[in-house]
């Protein structure tokens, strides 16, 4: 299981890097709001890594640790973790809270907002 090592397909963003990487980013970007102490986040982590690899050329994946970045969690009204938010060219186009930790479910969740 990746924990910000070289095999990590999901880059961690902070309050200072969120704007340049996500809001000013081009194309589809998925942001996971999570915390390391959240068991559901741990469960979904390998699934997200797998999905991030599958959609890698098309979509970028980032994570925000809500324990470190409570302002971002508050700004986006995060009720709990994990919450996935989908951005397109810096604009929010969808979100899903507590997705089923299966590759098919997560893949659908992060692909659907960009299909229309």
């Amino acid at each position: 299981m990746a924990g910000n090592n070289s095999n990590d397909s999901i880059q961690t963003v902070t309050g200072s890097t969120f704007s340049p990487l996500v809001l000013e980013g081009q194309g589809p970007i998925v942001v996971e709001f999570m915390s390391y102490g959240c068991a559901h986040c741990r469960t979904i982590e390998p699934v997200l890594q797998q999905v991030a690899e599958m959609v890698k050329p098309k979509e970028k994946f980032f994570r925000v640790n809500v324990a470190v970045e409570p302002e971002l969690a508050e700004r986006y009204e995060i009720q709990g973790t994990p919450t996935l938010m989908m951005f397109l060219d810096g604009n929010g186009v969808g979100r899903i809270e507590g997705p089923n930790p299966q590759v098919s479910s997560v893949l659908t969740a992060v692909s659907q907002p960009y299909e229309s």
Partner: protein
Amino acid sequence: MKEGSFLEIPTQRKPILLFDDECAVCRHIAHWVIELARSKSGEDCLIVHPIGNDPELLRSLNPDLNIWDAYETIHVLMPDGSMKLGGEAIAEVLRNLPNGKWFTWTLAVSVLGFRPFQAMLNLAYSILADVRPLFGCESCGTPGAWVKPIMWALHWAKTTFGGSRHPSPTTHFTSLPTARRQPMPVTGERPPQAGLF
């Protein structure tokens, strides 16, 4: 007993007990250990430290230490670079407590390769780890199958006879204690009051 930042641990000459500082049960136990671990001479027997949020800092303590694993199971980092997990970690903590040494020899007792007292300790740890969510801890992991009926019963009782303290155990979701409570949105849709998009 030290309970500070990782930067305050220059060299690891004592075992380091890592605890989940988001879990109230773990915090209480950690503070209890801190009190017990102080020897009569005032010297600390082991270092008790919160896991924190930086995977790289944890790796600097032990390259094999993964932050997800650290939150999943209790870890004691040994000065020789090894790690003790679960019941073995508890045994190591007891071994290092000034008042715990007198009985920890029993944990090493082996009968045909089986250590009955260590096995009992492992079981006790597993049970404690499973029931932590019953104490209202929202960061303590997914409740075990045998705990879920108890959680459902508690949830029902709380919502029927008073305010709801426990989150619904039916979603793949950990509610943030600081978040404003809203009806859970339908999967794939944004919350009705998000107001962002």
